[in-house]
């Protein structure tokens, strides 16, 4: 049986953050109808996953934790009734501090959720305010502790760096604070100013973002700090205690299959990549008509997949396994890439491993540059 990951998008937020460009709306009144629509869409895939066993479910957003325990239960019940879900499946829900309480957490546990990903971003209340987050550090702390009390043994905390006005000191303080709570996993990612967000449009924000050199220091010292505390880096922006890597996200980076539900969700399934339009109204109107909802729908060629595999594989600490690459794409990795990797190997941005190649931390910091140099995206490129 093939393994399958399921992603479920919950496009609601109490308030949209000024930097975020994920699809979400603030109109909570449509929650009930949306959950119904999701359930219909999931059920309409009943016959598709018969050869698969689901080993991860990821409920992301938006803010999934705006859903009640009952709503969460209905969605996961639909998943279970439509797919064969492994007993050991990793079932993650993203949550925002300030939207969690004991009864909701207990209902989530009941529904089968066994991993929480809590968006803290910063432990500095000034920075949180600047990010227009709805919570304080204290809200986070009580959410985190409540989750532990309710039996959540696998918790990720999101932390951001390169925030406007952030200093190496405030970042270090945030990390010290987070690590003292002993989560299992830390997502550590840099703020990116997306063009169609309030942050992206505000030149004042761009001016306050720490310089490239400061960001470099922030990244390296944070990585060291986390690794010293036993959070091992396994991807460009992800750190985990041993064995606590996020199974679901690993699927994306290893080009494994996943099915996404809800507007704006992406799928790679049966050799096809597809995604749904970011339009909740249309979604609610015809959740079962996938074709009408498609924004993108194509079958990538082997060459495209091979390029994707390299692009994503280099995000991972373990890097590219050349034998695996060769087996999967019938293509000689060294023949194709060695010449182009040379300058980066020379300067130790790319390192040789026992089974292939990986990026060093310095390499990860300029991964876009490296990947855009070595990869050929054009179909006809040889």
């Amino acid at each position: 049986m093939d393994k399958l990951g399921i992603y479920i998008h919950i496009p609601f937020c109490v308030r949209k953050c000024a930097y975020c460009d994920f699809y979400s709306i603030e109109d909570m009144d449509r929650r009930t109808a949306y959950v119904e629509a999701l359930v219909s869409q999931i059920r309409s895939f009943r016959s598709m996953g018969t050869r698969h066993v689901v080993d991860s479910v990821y409920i992301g957003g938006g803010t999934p934790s705006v859903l009640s325990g009952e709503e969460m239960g209905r969605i996961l019940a639909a998943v279970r009734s439509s797919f064969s879900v492994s007993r050991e499946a990793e079932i993650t829900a993203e949550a925002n501090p300030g939207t969690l309480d004991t009864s909701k957490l207990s209902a989530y546990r009941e529904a089968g959720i066994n991993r929480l990903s809590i968006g803290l971003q910063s432990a500095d209340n000034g920075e949180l305010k600047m990010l227009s987050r709805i919570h304080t550090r204290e809200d986070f702390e009580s959410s985190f502790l409540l989750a532990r009390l309710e039996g959540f043994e696998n918790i990720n905390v999101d932390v951001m760096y390169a925030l406007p006005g952030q200093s190496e000191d405030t970042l270090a303080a945030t990390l010290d604070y987070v690590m003292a709570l002993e989560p299992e996993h830390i997502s550590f990612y840099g703020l990116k100013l997306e063009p169609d967000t309030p942050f992206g449009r505000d030149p004042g924000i761009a001016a306050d973002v720490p310089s490239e050199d400061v960001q470099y220091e922030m990244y390296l010292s944070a990585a060291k700090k986390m690794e010293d505390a036993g959070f091992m880096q396994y991807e460009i922006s992800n750190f985990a205690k041993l064995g606590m890597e996020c199974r679901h996200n690993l699927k994306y980076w290893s080009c494994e299959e996943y099915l996404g539900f809800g507007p704006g969700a992406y799928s790679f399934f049966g050799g096809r990549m597809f995604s749904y339009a970011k339009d909740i109204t249309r979604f609610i109107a015809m959740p079962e008509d996938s074709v009408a909802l498609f924004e993108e729908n194509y079958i990538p060629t082997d060459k495209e997949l091979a390029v994707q595999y390299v692009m994503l594989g280099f995000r991972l600490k373990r890097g590219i396994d050349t034998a695996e690459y060769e087996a999967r794409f019938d293509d000689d990795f060294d023949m194709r890439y060695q010449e182009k990797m040379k300058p980066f190997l020379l300067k130790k941005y790319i390192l040789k491993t026992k089974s292939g190649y990986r990026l060093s931390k310095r390499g990860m910091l300029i991964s876009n540059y490296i990947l855009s140099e070595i990869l050929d995206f054009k179909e006809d490129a040889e």
Partner: protein
Amino acid sequence: MTRQEKIRNFSIIAHIDHGKSTLADRILEATRSVSSREMEQQLLDNMDIERERGITIKARAVKLNYEAKDGETYEFNLIDTPGHVDFNYEVSRSLGACEGALLVVDATQGVEAQTLANTYLALENNLEIVPVINKIDLPSADIEGVRREIEEVIGIPAEDCPAVSAKTGLNIGDVLEKIVSDIPAPRGDETAPLKALIFDSYYDSYRGVVVYVRVKDGSVRSGSKIKMMNTGAQFDVVEVGVMSAFGLVPTAELSAGEVGYITASIKSVADTRVGDTVTEAERQTAEPFPGFKPALPMVFAGIYPADSAKYPDLRDALEKLRLNDAALTFEPETSAALGFGFRCGFLGLLHMEIIAERLEREFGLDLVTTAPSVIYKVTYKNGEVKYIDNPANYPPADEIALAEEPVVKGSIITPTEYVGGIMELCKERRGIFVDMKYLDKTRVELHYILPLGEIVYDFFDALKSRSKGYASLDYELDGYRESRLVKLDILLNMEVVDALSFIVHADKAYARGRKIVEALKENIPRQLFEVPIQAAIGGRVIARETVKAMRKDVLAKCYGGDITRKKKLLEKQKEGKKRMRRLGSVEVPPETFMAVLKLDDE
């Protein structure tokens, strides 16, 4: 009345923005050559760039019929002239094809530098000048004041000159009658050998070069064997005709006094130089038109394709433009930094900008243009004299006995309140004050000798900004003056980038070098290694900046499986990289060269 007595050949001359093109439109309308609906804004200016910039670059001509109050129908040939000092020679040749000129003066601005310059050109060509005061519909119009000014400053009677509004059409009839009454009819010898003046030509892919001529004596028809007296080229005429408002209309012949076109399967405008005399191959006219000179470029710059594979396309495009532009020169040039390109010569900076813009717009080329340079004259210690139009070829200081740079006689007309600022500007630009004349109580004319190299950059812009747009400039070349020149080299990662070298006056070298390295620092993205940027004279570094090594690029999160977007992002980054020029080991976006070019002052 004889045939010639019913012909009037004239131009319209004016300072920029005084309403020359609008007046031309009104004349076209009033002679019912075109209705206002048919007129797509301004017919005579028919290049896009001209319309956008509101200036006329190439001369155009049109034949109109006018039924005058005396009951006769007259043939008007309106010859439009370029309106910028870069194109002075073409203006003068266009004027040479006429017997008279309408001098348009803005009723709110009065006489300006180009009003004077163009009037002098017209007088040199013995033209009858008919002043026309325009824009009288504006509240600030001062008709009587301007009338007086025309008489006092220019020295031509303006007592009964038409006062019109080309915009509203008011009193346009007066102008038409003035053309009939004041501008002399041509008086050519119809039986003499053909003598025709080329005042414009353009390349047409079906007919070959279409040559615009004014026939002075004799006649020409299909089948005539003609000869260009300066180039010596001979052709069999295929077709002759006249320019109507809507295009070329073939006629049986063109004879003395007329304005029209000739086609003769001519392959290149190089054979049909503006100012040349067309005559018969077998029976030459005794005297060609005086004053022919091949257009001399004054400003030079390297033009390179951003993508070096496009070199042949750039050559083809330049050749096509040269078909229509005899003033454009180019020869292949190799730069270590930019690869294969062309050293191009232009009449001035505007001409250069127009050519670069046309290359990009009409031929879809992505270009890198180096900083413009004038021609320096260098006398070597061994007595040899060389003219150098490319800074890369400038010799080391110890080989130079005497360095000279071209200077111009500049005439600036400005309202008195801006005199201080303008004198300061001229001083900054190493100008030598000659004299100052009051034109009237409110305006003065300043004369300066200025180095051409100082005005080819952004002198016009600086002048405008220091006079709220009121000051005007006209200049003409005035030979060479000794100057303390140095060659400033720019080094990236310790290697001289030939395409960034330029010649500068010693006193300004430090400031310019400083600014250039700063501008480069802003424009050069971080590389995998640290890149020192230096400005140096000889071997001596006078300014330095450093582009730090690349340390972090944007680490986009890659969640939720949105792989397509991530891929597109990297793809875009890759495309961006392809545009980069490799200068030694450093990759530089093509805009860098423009940025360095534009850093002049303020």
